[in-house]
């Protein structure tokens, strides 16, 4: 599709998907938070409050610390946003493909998941301040734990497609979506995805017990960019999940891209709701659960899917 659209149009599309996606996540987060807290407000306010907050942050000065790693600090949010864009760009919107037709789409997204660790760690290291530093190191422990389940459930989805490309994986779900064929896949993927997007309840890097973790020293537009990049990453997680497990563009009545958007929004709502209802576990507890629970389950998922294919 890159060839059909041309590079400038593709760039504009990915850019607006990032910004719009981050906005949608903020609105969903605010709206679902209000429902959970039982504290309702006019819909118009819910729709505009992310814009008000963004304008406030744009008007704030971007402060610095005594001896930061300034280039690293400057680039970290852009790096995370770039990874979100890399994830979004490979989501196929229809049979003709995605903005970037990557043959090894699953390996590509696994690489995105691994590089997020670099972005978050850099964001924690750069300010030379204790809370962000601990947040960054914590995220490495989290990332080493979510990386395996994430890759394994995606590999399981590649088995019936006999390919690593996302369009082929979508096409392989024409008869039966992977969410039914591999019932363990989507839940495991969503748990790993919450870690990948550094969202509640797995927001160990930016959590309240560190007074905001890697965000402690971020002000103004730097804070805005980091929060938006995290939200955009959640959109990428949901979009890939909708593609791999919910049949992507497949569906009656609506055109393909509309189905991708609808399914992505549904997964986003699920992820955001989990963030408002589920408290953050202890980090060590999560690490043990990931290694002793999630990874073996993901392996069971791979081999059961394989066995069913051969029968």
């Amino acid at each position, binding site marked *: 599709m890159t060839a059909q659209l041309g590079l400038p149009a593709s760039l504009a599309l990915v850019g607006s998907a990032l910004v719009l996606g981050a906005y949608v996540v903020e609105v969903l987060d605010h709206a679902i938070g209000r429902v959970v807290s039982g504290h309702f407000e006019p819909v118009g306010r819910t729709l505009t409050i992310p814009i008000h907050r963004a304008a406030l942050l744009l008007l704030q000065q*971007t402060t610095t610390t005594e001896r930061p790693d300034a280039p690293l600090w400057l680039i970290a949010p852009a790096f995370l946003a770039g990874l979100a864009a890399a994830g979004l760009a490979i989501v196929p919107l229809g049979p003709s493909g995605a903005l970037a037709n990557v043959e090894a789409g699953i390996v590509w997204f696994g690489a995105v998941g691994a590089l997020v660790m670099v972005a978050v760690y850099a964001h924690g290291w750069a300010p030379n301040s204790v809370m962000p530093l601990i947040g960054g*190191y914590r995220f490495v422990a989290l990332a080493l734990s979510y990386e395996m389940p994430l890759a394994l459930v995606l590999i399981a989805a590649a088995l019936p497609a006999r390919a690593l490309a996302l369009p082929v994986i979508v096409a392989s779900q024409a008869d039966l979506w992977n969410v039914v064929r591999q019932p363990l896949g989507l839940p495991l993927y969503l748990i790993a995805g919450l870690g990948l997007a550094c969202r509640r309840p797995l927001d160990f890097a930016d959590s309240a017990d560190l007074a905001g973790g890697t965000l402690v020293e971020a002000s103004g537009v730097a804070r805005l960019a980091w929060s938006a990049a995290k939200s955009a990453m959640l959109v990428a997680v949901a979009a890939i999940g909708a593609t791999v497990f919910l049949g992507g563009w497949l569906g009656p009545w609506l055109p393909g891209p509309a189905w991708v958007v609808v399914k992505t929004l549904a997964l986003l709502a699920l992820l955001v709701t989990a963030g408002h209802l589920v408290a953050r576990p202890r980090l060590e507890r999560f690490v043990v659960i990931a290694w002793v629970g999630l990874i073996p389950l993901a392996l069971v998922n791979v081999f059961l899917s394989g066995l069913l294919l051969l029968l």
Partner: protein
Amino acid sequence: MDAVGAALTVSLAGLGGWLLLRWVSDTLNPACSTAPGRAPFAAGAPPGVHAWSRFHARYYTMALLFLAFDMEMVFMYPWAVVFVREGVTALVEMLMFIVILTLGILYAWRERALEWA
């Protein structure tokens, strides 16, 4: 090469956009850097030392375990593509490999290598 070129363009365009935004914001709010304004946050008292240090990443044993599994994952990507063609052989061979690795997890768990505090 086409994909690499596109990725490079996207990265440069994104970085350019971000630097432009930073520039606009810094123009609206000229930097005003003073010693008390630069002090890292420590909830009231300025910190005694730099935060940068030889940080004790206590989960290093878990990180080593991850390395083993990361390699296994690399093997599994091509395996997934040829799985149906190779059939039972592929299943059994990978299963043997994984079971051995999984025993490693259980051993690490028993040795409390996954906990550090």
